[in-house]
């Protein structure tokens, strides 16, 4: 098992923990890049999802985004922007943002639509404005679903940010891409372990957050984007 010995040697080599190609820097790049992409995706998808869910209009847009979001592969999206925006951060970021949008949008719409209609009517009966109904009744009820969408989005973005090493240069994917190019198995494996840990950690963290919100609202999240098992993908 020389590969395990090589791997331990790789991780304990101080050179791999320092400098611009060190693990802390690459991990930081990966995390900052992913957080930025998810934040931008939320900034687009959340208001749009709230508006569509509340008014019931433009649902076709949500359906179209959902269908395209499932059909367009992340790898294809990443490479697609390179001819237009050139190599680097600037072409990887829009790809990641576009990838992050559909799960949040779909789950926000589904969450709002799934609010108990009697609660909405009660809100209106108490003299709430439409905006108050949205923010004080529908949004809290939809939160578990929104968090579930955010989880899928974040995990997808973290995973695809690995591929972004191909076009953007940074992040933990760098070790894998370089390892492939240099035919260094220890570097490839070290990169794979770091990326897998980050993705699994992201999934765990968001699942935990989702459970907290589910607990508070007293019912499980309706994950319309990634249903547990279903007769097909829902309409939106």
């Amino acid at each position, binding site marked *: 098992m020389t*590969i395990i010995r090589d791997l331990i040697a790789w991780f304990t080599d101080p050179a791999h923990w320092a400098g611009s190609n060190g693990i802390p820097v690459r991990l930081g790049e990966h995390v900052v890049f992913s957080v930025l992409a998810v934040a931008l995706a939320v900034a687009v998808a959340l208001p749009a999802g709230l508006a569509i869910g509340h008014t019931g209009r433009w649902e076709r847009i949500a359906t179209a985004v959902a*269908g*395209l979001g*499932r*059909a*367009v*592969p*992340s*790898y*294809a999206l990443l*490479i*697609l922007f*390179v*001819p237009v925006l050139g190599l680097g951060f600037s072409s990887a970021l829009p790809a990641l943002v576009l990838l992050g949008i559909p799960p949040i949008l779909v789950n926000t719409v589904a969450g709002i639509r799934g609010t108990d209609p009697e609660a909405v009517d009660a809100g209106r009966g108490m003299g709430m404005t439409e905006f108050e109904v949205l923010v004080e009744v529908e949004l809290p009820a939809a939160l578990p679903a929104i968090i579930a969408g955010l989880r899928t989005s974040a*995990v997808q973005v*973290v*995973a*695809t940010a*690995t*591929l972004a090493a191909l076009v953007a240069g940074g992040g933990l*994917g760098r070790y*894998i891409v370089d*390892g*492939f190019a240099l035919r260094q*198995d220890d570097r*490839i*494996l070290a*990169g*794979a*372990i770091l*990326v*897998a840990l980050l*993705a*699994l950690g992201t*999934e765990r963290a968001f699942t935990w957050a989702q459970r907290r919100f589910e607990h508070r609202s007293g019912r499980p999240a309706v994950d319309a984007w990634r249903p*547990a*098992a*279903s*007769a*097909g*993908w829902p309409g939106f």
Partner: protein
Amino acid sequence: MIRWDVIRGNLPLIGAKLGEHLALTLVAVGVGLLLSFVAVLVIRSRPRLAGPFTGFFGFLYTIPSLALLAFLVPFTRLSFLTSEIALVSYTLLILVRNLLAGLEAVPLDALEAADAMGYSRLRRLWQVELPLALPLIVAGIRIATVTTIGLVMVTAMVGFGGLGQVMLRGYNFRNDTLVLVGFVLTVALALAADLGLGWLGRVVTPWSRARAG
């Protein structure tokens, strides 16, 4: 931006890579279905294993595709096997969950009727449970297929990739047309698989349509 002469000149390559894409997808979903079926049979006879099994498949599902390929390369090198192990891994969670849900949804009456008629376990599974579970099984195959068509692209990193290889070549040689062709064909393939398997799902279960209509 689109140069038709490039498309004409690369038609043999595009055709071959489209075929490779289909082959990689079919093998992955086929093997995935087979393994999932075995897993489900094991889970049914040992229900305590349901948690660990789906937990493990969920773990595989969460590992980014490039990382999973990277794990395999030191052992299985740049090969068809490497590509398929990764692709099959991602189908398992989807297929097992839908198979289990489909079998659980079979009405108890149907099971009791089959038992009363003296069906053996195997015959009951084959002639009663699986046909009734078919809508959810086909739905699982549909989701797994569309997902796999996208993931096949990433196996371009280990020398396969089907249409992903066309995009990668376009990317390496600064050939925008090839990038676009690879992209459009993959999305078209995914949408076609989605529609086609959705249609198949309705065709193989005429009773569900009768009930709805």
